[in-house]
């Protein structure tokens, strides 16, 4: 389990108040019982935590928890290479 994954879990659990165990890679927003406002808050928290920017058009493609991890890892790597 990557450090990114743990941090993203921390953020989602704090904002969405879902059980940590729910957050498997295939867990959807419905599984998390998250609504659109939760997601807006999660995205802002991720941006702040990782020092990245997540444009709305990218965020709209997220389907499940795994997508967050993949996206954040890629953004953080991109930032490191820049």
């Amino acid at each position, binding site marked *: 389990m990557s450090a990114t994954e743990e941090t993203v879990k921390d953020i989602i659990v704090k904002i*969405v*108040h879902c059980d940590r165990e729910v957050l498997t890679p295939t867990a959807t927003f419905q599984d998390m019982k998250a609504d659109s*406002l*939760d997601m*807006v*808050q999660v995205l*802002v928290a991720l941006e702040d935590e990782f020092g990245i920017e997540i444009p709305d058009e990218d965020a709209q493609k997220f389907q499940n928890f795994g997508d967050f991890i993949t996206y954040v890892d890629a953004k953080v790597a991109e930032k490191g290479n820049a």
Partner: protein
Amino acid sequence: MDKQPVVVTGMGVICPLGLNVKEFWAGLAAGKSGINYITCFDASNYQVKVAGEVNGFDPTKFMDIKTVERTRRPTHFAMAVVQEAMESARLDMSQEQAERVGVVTTNMLECELIAEGWETLQKRGPRKVDPLFFTKSSPSVISLHIGMFLGAKGPNTSVNSLCASGADAIGTALNFIRLGYADVMIAGGSDASLGAMTVAAIGRLGALSPEPDPDKACRPFDLNRNGFIYGEGAGLVILETYEHAKRRGAPILAELAGAGWTYDAHNITAPHPDAEAIAMRTALQNAGVKPEEVDYINAHGTSTKLNDISETNAIKMAFGDRAYRIPISSSKSMFGHLITAGGAVESIGVVLTIMNGIIPPTIHYETPDPECDLDYVPNVARPAEVNVCLKDSFGLGGQNCCLVFKRFKGE
């Protein structure tokens, strides 16, 4: 207009004297003070040192955690208080026609949320602004959450007349019932605006007491009064037509017999007795009550130099010589000024006064003021049969609302 009796069947309170009606009344009847040193912000460089804070309140007992995080303290208070009020009225929404149950509340400007939001916008840009900024700071927020929680689909609105707001909300709700829009109204206010910004601003205005000793603050109608004490809290009443209350076998606590409104049109910070007196007389007329029938006045009684003289003069104008024979007391002496919620919480004190036959005192009263020479029920509660009570509420800026509560004596 059909003036069928409108009765109070339920009440809920949170204030510096306690977290429910029982604790509230125990404090009022004992002449207890809920004022203490300010802890909700660092007041070390403020002239004002004491306030009426609500301590030991846990909103998660009344709302799920996500709703707690998405709302502010006034909504937290209101959600707790509405549950107490509904329980005491034994009002079961599953038995009610949802469109016939409405809500009128009031709350104060969310100064600090607005300041924080602006700072975020300036420092971090529009993408970082809280998407709930609007719903958290809107003056309609309490009515929305109460209506949502209860599934009450009747009239749902909010009023504001600053310090008169709580009474204003109750009077407005009375009119919704009288005009036929609802059978049941939930009405009152919730205010948690006590904070660094508001105390600084009202302090600059010179309206707050600099009294450093919580055992001496505040002193309405006393010669040495020097301003009001900022407080926080919430009060809601359940109002319904007598017919509706009777049909469902509800507890009838008192009758809300009338309301009267006026505006000073005088000065943005100084009160004027003329319009206050007319508000009193209008409320009595609206209630079908003669001035000589009033046996208790629950004063606005802020403890500012100007309010207490103006109110005293207004009572004399409205009641003539009889003003000297009516017991008058200020509950603010015990829990401070709850701003927009004050008139609602104090109205609940009035209903309890009628129910219990005890007039709560004006505490901290030591030195009579020649300009405030009426009977202010100093320091000790007074047993008395109270059948008709006038509740005064005067908003900063000159908006006045008075209510008349009566012991309910049947049809």
